[in-house]
């Protein structure tokens, strides 16, 4: 049985959920953990989770080539056939796309000019295939690496939360940044059943520095206020607070917050100059990507940064230069930031340990534009773009067939990896974990359903795997 047949059978058989929890040990009840540990921020998950953790049979060896991840999420589903799986179609593709072949990769340089210059550091996956064509469903799917409607999907943490919790033991005492930061998100997936501190620290780029960490009155005013606060709050926030354990946590809470303020390290990461901003395209997305880069370079404990880009849902007027959100405007925004990001990370030597992932939640219909609205509609075939963190640049994984008119086409003809099937969001999730040195087959038994939470679904059946070809 080929790998592809095996996978298809598996998916048919275990489409919605997995078994796997027959074998699990009977554990102390979750409720005990939940309530025995009280106090603000006093939840040390490593301790509570450890007794129940087991590893699935057949231990795997993660690549462990990256220390942090920058995830550029292009929400709305970018058209793959106009970008990273470029298909020229006479009479359809605008002439001014200026496609060129660089490193053997055909790419519209009018849209992706900066990206074209760093293609030798970028790997493109063309055999990507989403599971669903509905934006919210697939966006959540991409972020949690599983079907949101499955039983564990309902409680599943964001991939970034898994990275954050796994990397917690490696955090140094001097590192002050949150492990998982979200810049620019409007509606990001959360920590699921994990403690809330492993959820995304949501902020927006701001030229002055970290929002909410800058005291508008300046440092002197702040110092005076801080002193006054502690003088009048007395022991209410101390270890002997009359209000009990929760209130005793206030001191630590404020102490941690204080460490982010008037902190040169924070300013270096979150503030930026006009010059830097222009280099990244002078857009909100560009500012966020720039901030992400600077956060990574500060090495302050941040392991996963998500930057969201919006407006890729090109049902209408995709090639209309005058339209507010045409493919031109969208790619311009992405390209400037992405190109600068790869260049800068490379120049500072951080690219080797920083995995950059860019993708949407699915692709768009190939071929002719839709007659009614002159756009492209939802399509399962999609691209993933990866760079850095051990990923071998300059390669294309997978290929798709050509497409004539509107209709099917641009399907995977050559998956381009050893599993010999389309590459799914779950495989990218496994790839991220592997690069980060996380065992993607891990199961934790502190989930509220007590059914065992697999980092990557169906790991007990080896359904998904890191795309190892990326690293060779």
């Amino acid at each position: 049985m080929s790998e592809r047949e095996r996978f298809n059978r598996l998916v048919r058989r275990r489409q919605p959920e997995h078994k796997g929890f027959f074998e699990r040990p009977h554990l102390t009840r979750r409720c005990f953990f939940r309530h025995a540990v009280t106090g603000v921020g006093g939840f040390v998950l490593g301790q509570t989770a450890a007794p129940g953790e087991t590893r699935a049979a057949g231990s795997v060896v993660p690549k462990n080539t990256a220390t942090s991840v920058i995830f550029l999420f292009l929400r709305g589903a970018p058209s793959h056939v106009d970008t990273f799986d470029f298909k020229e179609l006479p009479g359809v593709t605008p002439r001014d796309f200026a496609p060129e072949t660089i490193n053997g990769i055909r790419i519209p340089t009018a849209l992706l000019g900066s990206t074209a210059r760093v293609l030798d550091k970028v790997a493109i996956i063309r055999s990507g295939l989403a599971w669903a064509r509905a934006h919210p469903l697939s966006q959540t799917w991409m972020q949690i690496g599983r079907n949101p409607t499955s039983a564990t999907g309902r409680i599943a943490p964001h991939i970034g939360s898994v990275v954050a919790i796994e990397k917690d033991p490696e955090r140094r005492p001097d590192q002050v940044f949150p492990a998982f930061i979200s810049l620019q998100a409007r509606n990001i997936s959360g920590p699921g059943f994990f403690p809330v501190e492993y959820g995304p620290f949501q902020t927006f780029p701001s030229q002055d520095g970290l929002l909410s960490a800058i005291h508008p009155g300046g440092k002197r005013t702040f110092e005076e206020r801080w002193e006054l606060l502690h003088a009048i709050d007395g022991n209410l926030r101390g270890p002997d607070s009359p209000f009990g354990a929760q209130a005793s946590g206030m001191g630590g809470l404020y102490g941690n917050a204080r460490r982010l303020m008037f902190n040169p390290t924070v300013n270096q990461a979150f503030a930026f100059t006009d010059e830097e901003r222009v280099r990244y395209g002078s857009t909100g997305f560009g500012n966020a990507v720039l901030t992400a880069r600077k956060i990574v370079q500060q090495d302050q404990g941040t392991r996963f940064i998500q930057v969201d880009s919006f407006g890729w849902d090109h049902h209408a007027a995709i090639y209309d230069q005058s339209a507010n959100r045409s493919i031109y405007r969208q790619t311009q925004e992405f390209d400037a930031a992405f190109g600068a990001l790869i260049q800068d990370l490379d120049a500072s030597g951080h690219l080797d340990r920083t995995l950059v992932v860019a993708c949407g939640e699915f692709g768009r219909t190939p071929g002719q534009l839709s007659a009614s609205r002159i756009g492209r509609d939802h399509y399962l075939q999609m691209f993933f773009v990866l760079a850095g963190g051990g990923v071998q640049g300059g390669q294309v994984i997978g290929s798709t067939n050509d497409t004539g008119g509107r209709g099917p086409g641009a399907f995977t003809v050559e998956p381009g990896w050893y599993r010999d099937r389309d590459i799914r969001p779950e495989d990218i999730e496994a790839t991220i974990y592997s690069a980060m040195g996380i065992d993607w087959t891990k199961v934790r038994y502190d989930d509220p359903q007590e059914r065992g939470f697999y980092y990557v679904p169906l790991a007990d059946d080896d359904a998904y795997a890191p795309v190892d070809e990326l690293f060779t």
Partner: protein
Amino acid sequence: MDRFDFGSEAARRCVLAVLLCAGPAWGAEGADLDWEAPDGSFPDHGGCSYFGPQEGLGPFLSAAEDMAAMQRRTWDTRRVLAMLPQSRRQLAPARAGAGSATGACSGIDDCIHQAASSAGVPLTYLTTDQEFLRRVRLDLTGRIPSRDEVVAFLADTSDDKRERLVDRLLDTPEWADRWAMFFGDHFRNTRITAQVNRYPDGRDSFHLYLLESMRENKPYNQMAQEMLAAEGTSDGRTYPQRYSSYSHYESTYLNYAENPVRASPVGYIVGARTTGGPIQDTYDTLAFITARDFLGVSALDCVLCHDGAGHLDSLSVWGAQATRLNGWRLAAFYSDIPRFQTWRSPARFLPNNPNNGRRVNANYYFVHDLAPGRRQRSNQGDTAGEYLAQTQGGNRPDRLHTDTFVEPAYTFGGIPATSAGGRLRQQVGWHLTADPQFARAAVNYIWREFFSRGIVEPPDQFDLARLDPASPPPEGWGIQPSHPELLEWLGGAFRDNGFDLKWLMREITTSETYQLSSRYDGPYNPLYEKHFVRHQVKRLSAEQVHDAIMVASGRYASYSVSRTLRGIQYATQFSDVVNVPQGNARRPRSARLLLQSFTPGDREETGRSRTGSPLQALNLMNNPFVTDRVSPNAPTGTLAEALQLADDALVAHLYLTVLSRYPTETEIAFAVDYVQAASDRGAAASNLLWALFNKTDFYFNY
């Protein structure tokens, strides 16, 4: 006392009474440890007819009079505070209930006292008036009390003032706002989830339904029945069969003034829409959310994929016996609903459409049952009208491989499964609300909102086979509720009182158990939590923090959430917790960043959390939402008022307004010294106001 000058003898006496009734000095100085055992009552000062019961808690003086009075006032604090009663109220000794030998109890306090005394865990004392006022105001209405309310409540010397306060709060519009927010969380009303886009209109419509239900104090069983049987458009608007022209379309579809979003419970059904599978997946989701939201039984989700045996054995005695077939039987009650799709604006097909080709952003769902006995096969292969247990693929494992239909039946126990006629979805509403578990789950969810912990915890994980001490579960299992008799009594009484939510909340908030102090003398073990011997502090929710800062600063915002909800002042009035307004144009995102840092969840995969995080501290310290409101430059609101007062009155004013309590003697002395030592009085007052917003007793409901 001659330095008080309120113009009239009556007013003067009232102010005195205010200070005398203020209860124990509050603060960090350890004074509370020295208090003597009490005589259990406050001195009766009489003569305060100004605050007679008929006056309720109306404003103490008119705002102008009050201001004028305050400007003339200075406080001889030391002398006044020296007169405060150094006592606190103690509980009456636990009643030796007649039924205590058998474990039976009746009423919240009886049950809690009995259980605590048999566990040998001592109860703490009753909370003070000013603590009680802030607590119950936040819990019932989501807002902190105004300064006037604090002053008036403390001045009130009647014995039943706490009960009257509760009654008054239950009748405020804020009560409806706050509990519409609670049920919005509970029923997960949000615009967009991984599965379904309700659209702003649909979300607002469901929100309006919850809000109106609260305003009418609709019986909770009626709410459940209406939501389960809901039909119509998901935005509550009306639509013609077809549009004759664009202007017809414009005057109906686009005309929100004439055809507004109306309250509709259809949003509850819409939220269960499950894509990527057969229609049975949607029926199963409906069964699951019915069980979770109304019965507190989340385990049905598991059972809808596989029998409980072999899966839930270590989790739930009930679950281990539950079968997938019985899950389908509950789901079958929903099988008259054909697959519902988004109905889009048909504008672009109409002649003379000036926006030709552009979709108008208004979408809705239409939920309507098939006629009884009718079966419909859709072009997607769905069979509606009966629950066909033959499916392959989708979101749940394949059902049967034979062509079998499942009869609807309510199998949760105790209720005859005979159908009483009516539509299937009406039937399930009747079965459900007649089930004692419906009342149990409801009172437990509400109880948890007040006590931070359910009698069954977590409240959505009931094990139906471990509730009754009279029929104990198998070896190795304990009874699940911490207070089974109380749960049974409270559920039964809730049902007997017509599922009246106000009755339930009155019963809870007027109990001694709820009115226990959050302080505890002597060693406290975290395991005592389940005995409810001490009130658990909880930090303010996102909306409560936002609203409290607005109320206390006296500087209000005005938000537009959507086409329907405009001119909103309070975050508690929002119809959602995500996609909420961001703040004003000058301070973009300030309100949203503040709200988000207090983790309201997303009403989908992430629940509301009361955990603390440094991000909250950062926002309270630095977010312009706070710092603008305390800025000494061109001060308005509370700060401007305070700056017109003498130093000691200024301090008292700020403490009363922000913390809803009087400062202690030490606090006044310290703050007055601080203000007087400062070179810039405005800046000093501003700093003090800022510090109060960051104080532990602002951050917590205690």
